[in-house]
């Protein structure tokens, strides 16, 4: 086992004993067919024949046994793939589409992405820093809320900069910190934020914490200083970047709950080679996308996809996205199962509108981006302290991200007004002194990630409003039906 490699992250423990997930890096959120086929093959051989396509836009191989991690890592390396990052580290830059692919792009997000790669390569760890770049103000990958630093293309080679975005237990919509910066200035902003957070950040703090603690103005001053001073870096060459307009259309393949089987992934790779430009793009809502497809051939492709049970996003609503759900150590509910039922509900209701977004996450960390969905679900659980078992070690209070636990007379006391029902304290207690009470789904309505005046629910990035908590799966489905009828 190459333990040194593990220090960089990219391997995450799952709920089942000895089972891990392997995060595979997708540079510029694309992967060529040869590499994707390898991922499919490894999922078949070492995992359980499934691949998860995440909201961070890369594939994950779940259920790899601890003893096989080294082999998987070695085989990935054979096709020049490496592990992505997890935890408190600089993450891979998320991008939407190449400006030679997307007709809406005003600038190429990949060019800036290539320049930011250096920070990923050289990250010393300690702070989670997500970056995201979009090529136009439509903001398909929701950079304002899904990333610590979000760059929004506003003109050729020019970006507005938003800082502080995150979801989870303490969501934050990024604040605009600069306008119309060129790419070199954007690189400087990232360098400044990293320097600042390593110098002044407390353990594990993210950019939103800096803004909350020090105020937006101080953060703005720190990260926008010395903009003219060029950062020395070595750009990475994205191997799927296009040198000219590719034409055709983008084929969006539905992957409910962001899940495809190995056999389906093989077919997707084959189609990318036969009909596309030989690569797959991973979209934020978990669909696998193939750019450069001739419209006249879509019927033919659809019949090939149908053979392995796949379809495209030409009916129903946008891809239903989940996280690991019940596989995850934080998972409270079977969010993936819920989405499969919602898929049937949508078919029954005959909905046909890709602007409608639905997500379901296993817990309030909402990796499935539920709060920026029209209807967003996440699992919740009520923690109850068994006073006779609690020995006052205080680990639960450290684990609680919203400071809802205090030690009083050597016992843990939970402030239910602050609690976000996430299960961190239940999991962290070494002595099983905190038990789960009621559990179920929370539902938020009206969230959105991007900005598009063109669609009929257009408007700024906003978090959905929580309308219910602790619903059973049946109640959650009933509410989904009512809400969908209203939409």
């Amino acid at each position, binding site marked *: 086992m190459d*333990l040194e490699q593990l220090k960089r992250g990219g*391997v995450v*423990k799952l709920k089942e004993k000895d089972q891990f997930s392997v995060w595979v890096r997708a540079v510029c959120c694309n992967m060529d067919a040869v590499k994707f086929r390898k991922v499919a093959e490894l999922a078949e051989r070492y995992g359980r024949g499934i691949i998860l396509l995440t909201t961070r836009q890369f594939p994950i191989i779940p259920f790899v046994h*601890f003893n096989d991690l080294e082999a998987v890592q070695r085989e990935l390396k054979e096709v020049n793939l490496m592990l992505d990052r997890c*935890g408190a580290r600089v993450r891979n830059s998320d991008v939407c589409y190449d400006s030679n692919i997307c007709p809406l792009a005003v600038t190429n997000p990949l060019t800036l992405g290539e320049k930011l790669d250096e920070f990923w390569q050289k990250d010393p*760890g300690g702070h989670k820093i997500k970056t995201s770049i979009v090529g136009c103000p439509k903001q398909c990958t929701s950079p304002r809320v899904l990333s610590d630093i979000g760059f929004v293309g506003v003109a050729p080679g020019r970006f507005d900069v938003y800082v502080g975005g995150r979801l989870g237990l303490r969501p934050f919509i990024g604040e605009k910190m600069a306008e119309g910066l060129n790419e070199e200035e954007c690189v400087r902003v990232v360098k400044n934020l990293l320097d600042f957070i390593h110098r002044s950040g407390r353990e*594990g703090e993210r950019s939103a914490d800096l803004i909350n603690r020090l105020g937006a103005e101080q953060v703005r001053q720190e990260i926008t200083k010395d903009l003219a001073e060029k950062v020395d870096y070595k750009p990475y060459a994205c191997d799927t970047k296009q040198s000219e307009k590719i034409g055709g259309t983008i084929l969006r393949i539905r992957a409910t709950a962001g899940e495809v089987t190995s056999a389906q992934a093989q077919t997707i790779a084959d189609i990318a080679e036969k009909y596309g430009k030989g690569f797959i793009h991973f979209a934020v809502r978990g669909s696998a996308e193939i750019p450069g497809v001739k419209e006249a051939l879509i019927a033919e492709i659809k019949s090939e996809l149908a053979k392995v049970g796949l379809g495209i996003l030409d009916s129903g609503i946008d891809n239903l996205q989940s996280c690991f759900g019940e596989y995850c150590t934080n998972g409270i509910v079977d969010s993936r199962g819920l989405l499969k039922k919602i898929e049937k509900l949508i078919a029954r209701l005959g909905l046909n509108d890709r602007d409608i977004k639905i997500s379901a996450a296993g817990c309030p960390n909402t990796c499935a981006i539920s709060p920026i969905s029209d209807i967003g679900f996440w699992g919740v659980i009520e923690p109850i302290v068994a006073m006779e078992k609690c020995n006052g070690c205080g680990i639960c209070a*450290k684990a609680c991200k919203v400071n809802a636990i205090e030690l009083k007379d050597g016992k843990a006391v939970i402030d239910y007004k602050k609690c976000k029902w996430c299960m961190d304290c239940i999991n962290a207690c*070494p002595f099983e002194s905190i038990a789960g009470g009621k559990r179920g789904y929370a539902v938020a309505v009206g969230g959105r990630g991007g900005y598009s005046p063109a669609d009929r629910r257009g408007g700024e990035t906003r978090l959905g409003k929580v309308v219910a908590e602790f619903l059973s799966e049946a109640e959650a489905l009933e509410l989904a039906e009512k809400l969908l009828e209203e939409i």
Partner: protein
Amino acid sequence: MHKLDLTGVACPMNFVRTKLKLEELQNGELLEVILDDGESIVNVPRSVKDEGHKILEVKKLKGGAFSCLISKG
């Protein structure tokens, strides 16, 4: 009793090294791991517990680290 000092070792390495050490032991044998405050003390006992071992004791040490006593399950 076996002992493993994991101060300065980050997640998930701290857990992986604990796990490898526990694999060398017989059921019922004890292992004391020294863990940093913060992410380590929140995550490692939890993962150890998930793997079916028992945490017998958690003590805060001088200097801020924690001692965590595990019985192999």
